[in-house]
């Protein structure tokens, strides 16, 4: 647990959008997935996950519908909208630029 990093809001949004790229997911699965893929380094706490989902829904980047989960319970599934796809591309691009630039500065100095 000690290796975890606090995530800024914009990054949480980006990670959520990216996690939804393969297909619809419910909240818990999103947070599990992020944790798993990042080798337990990144973790989105519920405290920021659900507000972020509501925020993204309000912006129209994801939409929600109720479905049945793998253990047969009603769960709220989120999926990317068309605007969400575009937003993901734009944010990914921005993130790449940023990290490359930061990388260059760190190495060049």
């Amino acid at each position, binding site marked *: 647990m000690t290796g975890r990093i606090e995530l800024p809001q914009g990054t949480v949004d980006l990670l959520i959008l990216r996690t939804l790229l393969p297909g619809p997911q419910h*909240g818990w699965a999103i947070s599990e997935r992020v944790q798993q893929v990042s080798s337990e380094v990144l973790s989105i706490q519920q*405290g920021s996950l659900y507000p972020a989902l*509501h925020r993204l829904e*309000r912006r129209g980047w994801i939409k929600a519908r109720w479905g049945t989960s793998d253990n047969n319970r009603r769960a*709220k599934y989120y999926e990317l909208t068309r605007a969400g796809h575009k937003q993901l591309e734009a944010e990914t691009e921005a993130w790449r630029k940023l990290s490359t630039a930061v990388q260059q500065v760190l190495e060049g100095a």
Partner: protein
Amino acid sequence: MLDDLRYRARALFRRRQVEDELDEELRFHFDREVQKYISRGMTGEQARRTARMAFGGHEQVKEDCREARGTSFLELTFDDAKYAVRQLIGSPTFSIVMILTLALSIGANSAIFSVINGVLLKRLPYPQPQRLVRIFLTSHEYPKFPLNPWDFLDFRARNHSFEAIAAFSRSDVQLSGQGEPIKLNGFHITSGYFRVLGITPQLGREFDFQAEIPGNGRQVIISDRLWRTRFGADPAVIGRAITMEMQPYTVIGVMPPGTEHPGNEYHSVAYGENVDVWRPFSFQGNSNQRGSHFIEGIGRLKPGVSVDRALAEMNAIMAQIVREHPNNNGWRVLLIPLYSEVVGTSRQLLLVLLGAVGMVLLIACANAANLLMARSSARQREIAVRLAMGAPRLRIVRQLLTESLLLSCLGGILGLLSAFGGVRALVLLLPSDFPRANDIHVNWPVLLFTLAVSLATGILFGLAPAMQASRTDPKQGLQKTTRGTTSGRQQNRLRSALVMAEVGLASVLLIGAGLMLRTFLNLIHLDSGFKQDHLLTAGVSLPREKYKLEKDRYLFYTQLMSTLNALPGVESAGAGSDLPWTGYDENAGGFRLENKAPQPGEEFHARYHAATPGYFRAMGIPLLAGRFFNEGDKDGAKNVFLINQTMARHYWPNESPIGKRVTFADAPKNDSDWITVVGVVGDVKDHPNSAGAEAAFWYPEFQSPDNDMLIAIRTQSDPRQAIDGLRLAVHQLDPGLAVADIKLMDDVASSAVSTPRFAFALVGLFAALAIVLAAIGAYGVISYTVGQRAPEFGLRVALGAQRADLLRMVLTQSARLVIPGIAIGVVLALSLGRVIRGLVYQVSPNDPLIMTSVVLLVSAIALLAAYIPARRAAAADPLATLRTE
């Protein structure tokens, strides 16, 4: 954008569903976490605890989600309001006390603001009123003096600063013809008077310059009201002849409704729509005789011309006039913007009243804050629970603020309702000469003001208690007792400070009320120079055409006087040019004393009156030397007059004025040019609060009887019984005459002190409200701390303390609150003294007697407020209190 709106709308209008969904979503997440931990080998209990810890505050998450949905503000407010209503209903006594005290103080503020809004803030009812100025003269002896007609003509011809100037002079008329003759408020006006005001007649036109020429004056402009009531709103009234003063006058104009009189000083008519008849002013007589000042000037400045520039020009013109007519020496022009002139005297009073109600409101706020804090310590558990559930502190502040805003708004609504009644009562209470009383209403600006005051009040008294309550430590708050916690001590300090402030402000108001009371008492116990009781007054005017001859007027008055004096129950009856305290201000200048040359620059001016022999006895004005008038002082007899004491002292210091002679002629030739002083009578001031009496003299009315006369009848019992006799006497002499303005001198005198009475009544009321609130505040804090210290008291009694010791302890504690409070109040009152200097009469704003009385009164009330809880403390049962510990 549209998505966003749709989303928000759904979140807002299907709140219940959205909230339920959120709950379900979060529950699902939690359950999956628990499952995950169980699958890693934890027991069910362990898994749940771990999940709960990872989850953070459930409430917090929901709160953040609401915020993310973008509807949180409205939703929260709605929630908070619902919760607040439940809280208020839950403690009805608390809520009622809060709402009532707030309603009283907000209502008082709204009522005073209604008056201020109507009198001070509302525009004068003329176009571009800021360009209107009143024109007076001033000298070092007479600060504000009417104009002389010839000077006015010179001003009108020579000035370039004004678009137009006009003059007016009171001249009531008797309208006869159909039905009972009536007397109407009327004015003589110069051409252009309505152009200056900016009002055009709705029918016909206004007077032209021709109308000012003597002989052309038989024209009249009438008010809309007169047109409707007397002439059936007939448009053909223009050009018609109507009978006024028993003379035919041609109607040339009808003014529109809302033609308000701009007010005047001399023979004053109140501001407002109360003048019915305007006739042309005639410039009669010799333009070189400029001693008589009786017309009032008003002008409309050209656009862009400042009052100062106009004043400089007018004074340059005055200097020319003085060179041309040297006996005008000493006069300068005084220009006063119409607004200042209209609201002038009332402004200070109203601002002081606003300050007073403002203080009452502050006290009410302090009280409300105190009550809230006392309650919030009772609610500490509830708040601690909410904090422990993860509610952010800001959320608690918001919740508590919503409660106080709800209280203040309910108070505001109730206050506004009471302001409707209050304003009606205020208008009735207003001094009769108060400007613009008709413009006082509870209207939109008052509504907005009340709303703003209510919100500000709610925040003011709610913020500190809310902040403090939100600082509750959840752990301590959940424990059984909260006594002795830091926040508790802090709270006690804040509450004590609030009580101190309340006591201080209440002391200021009480000192103010004391000053107003002293002023009022000084004025009614003043030696007025005449006797107001048992005195009936009335006015009779003899139409100038019918009573053109002096001997007819002489006959009328002598007959009327002898009939009145013979009436049963009448002690003496007289008539004169005027009555005291009614705004009379007629002056004569340019006289000379025999064997006395004036000093360079010395002005000979005196108030001019006329009286019949019975006048002084009827008014109760004493004779100090010489004799009163008698029946022999008539036309053809030696010219005599009476002077008042001030005139005697001023013109004949250190010698007897009896037998001394005065003349108005430039070159007196024979005895008839001289007037001999035959008596000295007591001084009567112009107004009860004038600094002193003006020098004045009286002509014998019977020597040259005037057309207008005011009658004074002194009776043995109720003066009202003489009314019928007076009417009958006048009717017998001339059935066409109206008896106007029948009044008791007691009423005249009482309306002359109506402003100080009004000031005292209101400041007194506010002070009473303030001290009651402050007493409640002191009582609340003392009884709260007594309750807190009950175990300590029980312990003390158990250890042998006497009940008197406990009583003393509590009273000392209250003295520690009250004494600094009173000290603050006295210091504040001393520094505010300047503000009310103009409103007090013959009492210093720092009057030590009043200060001492207030200090004693407030101490006594505070002692009383502390005594009840102190007795409870002293009655502490050691066993019972220790058992509850």
